[in-house]
């Protein structure tokens, strides 16, 4: 029944794609909740425009670059495209979140164009795509990275690291006398809503990456992948909650959610090939990485308002390597993949960001940063009717 299987796989890809698109409001709400209320509309605008610009340039340029051809026998080629298109914005979302509260929108959009049309497609080309380095020393197609612990999460987070190095921390965050000033999240319900939408989106992200559901094996693989994905998220949340409670007798929900997201990133590389208990360990370590990663970057004065480096970079690396440890996959292949993509993503992002920064400076001027990006970049306030506390 090839026709029905084609139809079923098309529906499956569309279902998975739709879940991933829920990550657009997911990232938007998460970040809108985490930043100060004077920067909320800016963060929301950035998230909206990343989806628009990245998807458009992936359609016009990136997809062909990544995969060489649009042809597809097993499902509608449009569904296959949509599924891949749903990924591309995420790399920039990861990056934009970490530089929020101080970055102008226009240069960010210029970088989005380059990321969606070039950098990300090249990373995909090398791993899931046409592989123009096939057979060379840099061929990394042996890396098992189901849904992008490295290809998506690390790529986006390497770009973020490059961006933070160029743009610097938020004004007033690191005082001259060495203390770190706290800018609490302005809206916790939005943080939770956003994280949960991301979590749900992950089912589509990882499950859909199996690529087919129309045979018994593939159906099992999809369901196992989603189950393992979820399990790692659970473990990440639980471990962070335990650590926080032991330390402070309190449950910091923003860290717990970051722990869940860390677990989800970590399991993304190998969710399809682990047994059902391994993700508990992988997610738990993913959570721990977040707990220790966030203050670690702060100590280095690398200012990342949403914790994206710990969630996406450290856990992207951890998750990819974990496949080489816990599954029947060469650790060396995994490490090589991490390094090649890492070096490529960091250097190319740094160069592009540096070049853009020469023409259209990323950093907003100090007075506008104090006043808030909403008024200065978006021309409005996010909560104009609510009195802001002191």
């Amino acid at each position, binding site marked *: 029944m090839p026709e029905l299987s084609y139809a079923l796989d098309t529906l499956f890809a569309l279902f998975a794609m739709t879940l991933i698109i829920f990550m657009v409001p997911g990232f938007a709400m998460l970040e809108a909740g985490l930043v100060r209320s004077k920067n909320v509309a800016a963060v929301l605008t950035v998230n909206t425009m990343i989806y628009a610009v990245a998807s458009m340039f992936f359609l016009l340029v990136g997809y062909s670059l990544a995969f060489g051809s649009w042809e597809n026998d097993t499902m509608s080629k449009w569904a296959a495209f949509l599924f891949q298109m749903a990924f591309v914005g995420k790399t920039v979302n990861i990056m934009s979140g970490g530089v929020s509260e101080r970055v102008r929108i226009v240069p960010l959009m210029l970088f989005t164009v380059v990321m969606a049309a070039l950098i990300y497609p090249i990373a995909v080309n090398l791993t899931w795509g046409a592989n123009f380095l096939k057979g060379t020393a840099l061929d990394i197609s042996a890396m098992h990275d189901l849904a992008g612990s490295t290809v998506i999460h690390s790529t986006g987070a390497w770009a973020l690291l490059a961006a933070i190095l160029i743009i610097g921390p938020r004004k007033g965050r690191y005082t001259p006398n060495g203390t*770190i000033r*706290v800018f609490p999240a302005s809206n916790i319900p939005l943080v939770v809503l956003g994280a949960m939408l991301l979590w749900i989106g992950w089912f589509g992200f990882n499950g859909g990456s199996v690529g087919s559901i129309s045979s018994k094996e593939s159906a099992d693989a999809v369901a196992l992948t989603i189950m393992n994905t979820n399990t790692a998220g659970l473990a990440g949340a639980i471990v962070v909650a335990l650590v926080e409670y032991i330390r402070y007798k*309190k449950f*910091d929900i*923003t*860290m717990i959610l970051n722990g869940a997201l860390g677990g989800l990133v970590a399991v993304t590389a190998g969710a399809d090939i682990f047994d059902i208990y391994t993700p508990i360990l992988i997610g738990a370590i993913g959570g721990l990485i977040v707990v220790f990663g*966030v*203050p670690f970057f702060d100590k280095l004065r690398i200012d990342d308002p949403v914790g994206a480096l710990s969630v996406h970079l450290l856990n992207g690396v951890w998750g990819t390597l974990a496949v080489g440890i816990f599954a029947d996959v060469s650790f060396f292949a995994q490490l090589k993949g991490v390094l090649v993509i890492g070096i490529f993503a960091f250097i190319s992002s740094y160069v592009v960001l540096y070049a853009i920064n020469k023409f259209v400076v990323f950093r907003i001027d100090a007075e506008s940063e104090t006043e808030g990006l909403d008024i200065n970049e978006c021309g409005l306030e996010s909560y104009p009717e609510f009195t802001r506390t*002191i």
Partner: protein
Amino acid sequence: MKKIEAIIKPYKLDEVKEALVEVGIEGMTVSEVKGYGRQQGHSELYRGAEYVVEFIPKVKLEIVVSNDDYLHRAIDAIKSAAKTGKIGDGKIFVLPVEHVVRIRTDEEDEEAL
């Protein structure tokens, strides 16, 4: 005429209001403020680290009274209803008022209260 400004703990507002009504005070204006004083703020968590919040939520009551009799009754009412004995109970300030108008009726001074 005098104006009483009382800074109290927020959750004491209802009790203080009732105490004031009981002694015959029928009008007051309330606002939300933050206080800095001897009372230490609670500590909060931020991404795996603790820090102390310095400004503490308080409620400010403003009551204009027509004479010293009401003034003392109001002060006593506030003092007894707002006191917990713990640091941060707040302060009462008394300021002179020279003139009062009730907008609705154009009544002035004592009659406007």
